């Protein structure tokens, strides 16, 4: 049984919860709406980094396998999440349903976040930085083989993960596909210090305790159509503590050297930063408990559309510069 859903007006988006910035996303379920597994997931690099026919075959086989187990009462469904329908999101109703416009996946994600922003319930680490990249943990998968680990580094290697391992679980929950894994990974509390990853190593089950690195949840938001993201159109690299001291800057601050400026900044008149500038304060603030760069500070602490004043060093001279963040508009 194959079904393709392109409008989500009457779909329980609480049950079919996923990162709405996926271009394609699949579920295998039964007539009782018990979800066996997910197939989907992406990274900032490409929408299909983890999508291919080989891993789809594996997912389909497993879907059929679980269905057989379910029919023999040998598989138990996890608890059904709380129902949520698009008509329960007032902004979505106002901007799409009431206008008989298409309720698209990405619009649901965008309007949910704008609604949260208005309600004061927006948690940027969770709602804006969705779908953390497992490569930040040092896990590189051989995508055609599903959850087979190809290369390991960083925190995953330190925890004992090896190439050839196959991911089987996250914090005690089983995973069958990358979609399963990324969805559960996205659910990890952003303040968590570690997590447990189950692996199969030559047929033997192991559970590895992985220490989460700082800002493990960070991802490149560039591909997302999110109106809550204050776009700044520059990238910078944090200065080493010694360089900050030599410049008389706060050694614990987020002073960073601009390494790239998007041409969009000039078109939109956002700012006049240049590569090589050292930005050391935003509206007079030089340090933050989370942000390690000025652009991350702005994204976390400011609202899209806000104007700020940067303190920076250019050619050895200190100066101030205005920066106006850009609020994306809805695509439709």
């Amino acid at each position, binding site marked *: 049984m194959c079904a393709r859903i392109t409008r989500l007006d009457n779909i329980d988006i609480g049950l079919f919860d996923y990162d709405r910035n996926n271009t394609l*996303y699949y579920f295998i379920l039964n007539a009782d709406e018990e979800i066996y597994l997910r197939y989907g997931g992406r990274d900032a690099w490409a929408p299909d980094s983890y999508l291919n026919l080989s891993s789809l075959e594996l997912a389909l*086989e497993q879907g059929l396998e679980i269905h057989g187990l379910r029919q023999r009462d040998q598989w138990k469904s996890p608890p059904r999440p709380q129902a949520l329908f698009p008509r329960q999101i007032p902004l979505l109703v106002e901007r799409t349903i009431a206008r008989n416009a298409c309720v698209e996946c990405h619009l649901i994600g965008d309007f949910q976040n704008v609604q949260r922003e208005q309600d004061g319930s927006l948690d940027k680490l969770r709602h804006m930085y969705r779908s953390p990249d497992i490569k930040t943990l040092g896990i590189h998968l051989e995508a055609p083989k599903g*959850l087979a680990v190809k290369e390991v580094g960083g925190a995953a290697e330190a925890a004992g993960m090896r190439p050839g391992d196959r991911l089987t679980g996250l914090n005690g929950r089983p995973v069958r596909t990358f979609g399963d894994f990324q969805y559960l990974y996205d659910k990890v509390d952003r303040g968590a210090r570690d997590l447990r990853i189950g692996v199969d190593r030559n047929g033997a089950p192991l559970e590895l305790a992985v220490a989460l690195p700082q800002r493990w949840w960070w991802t490149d938001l560039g591909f997302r159509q999110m109106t809550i993201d204050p776009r700044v159109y520059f990238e910078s690299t944090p200065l080493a503590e010694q360089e900050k001291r030599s410049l008389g800057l706060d050694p614990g601050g987020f002073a960073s050297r601009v390494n790239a400026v998007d041409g969009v900044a000039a078109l939109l008149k956002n700012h006049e930063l240049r590569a090589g500038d050292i930005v050391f304060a935003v509206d007079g603030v030089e340090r933050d408990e989370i942000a390690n760069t000025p652009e991350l500070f702005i994204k976390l602490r400011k609202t899209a559309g806000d104007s700020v004043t940067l303190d920076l060093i250019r050619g050895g001279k200190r100066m101030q510069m205005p920066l106006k963040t850009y609020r994306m508009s809805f695509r439709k």
Partner: protein
Amino acid sequence: MNMRRPALSVPALLAGLLCGGLAALAAEDDRLHWLSNYDEAIREARRTQKPIFLEFRCEP
């Protein structure tokens, strides 16, 4: 999870979800039918006792 390469093709597996049974796979291989109504898919899955392969995507 079995990491060997499956013997069945993706269309064949999808056809398996659609109508079930190896004997029917070849016949259905090129005739996948995608329902566009979720409630209809649920009813059909209940009637046939088959699982649902559910795709979410924007209008092509």
